[in-house]
């Protein structure tokens, strides 16, 4: 699964720590999600999408091998 979190974060001028604080998770989680090491839960994905005012499908996309 790919995600555009890093891009959206840059667009909204947020650091990993800022984004983590806004959605109530650890900075480590944001880092792991951005690097593709961790797939967030549906709740967390929805929270991020809501913060960036976009749909989950625009923030996260499936890859061929998923």
């Amino acid at each position, binding site marked *: 699964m790919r995600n555009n979190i890093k891009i959206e974060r840059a667009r909204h001028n947020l650091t990993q720590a800022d984004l*983590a604080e806004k959605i*109530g*998770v*650890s*900075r*480590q*989680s944001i*880092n*792991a*999600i951005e690097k593709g*090491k*961790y797939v*967030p*839960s549906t*709740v*967390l994905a929805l929270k991020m999408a809501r913060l960036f005012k976009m749909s989950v499908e625009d923030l996260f996309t499936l890859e061929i091998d998923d």
Partner: protein
Amino acid sequence: MSIMKTNYLLPHRYKIIGWVLLILGVISGLVFFNQDFESDMLKMDVFAIYNGEDIFNKDGGFFKIIENNSILDEITALSIIFGGLIVGFTKEKVEDEFIFKLRNDSLVWAIIVNYIILIFTIIFIYEFTFFNVLVYNMFTPLLFFIFRFNFLKYRS
């Protein structure tokens, strides 16, 4: 809907106590190891539910008082275990699903690594050294768990 419920964890503020106990215990344990697990410190009479018999002790059995026993080894082992449990099972500053997953994965790895060490020991280590390894094996699951969890957390 809350992101993660981890109700078996202690509050974050206890973590420092855990680190102090764990570090003191490990230092004491390393010193103790260099003295072949013998010490003259803190000698007192202790109560034993069961005391084994050997060539030095003919008075084994249930519910015995053991006289003049150094309790440094007991304190050292308990300090490592309590310290390790507190460090491993207190909340992080921010608890979330990723931290929860790191903790669970680290626990699984700790059990697997511990038994790999034990299997290796059973096959390749003999006589008294075998029992020395078992002494370390009492602590390796907790220590490996703490090490791996913190390593992955700080690398993230």
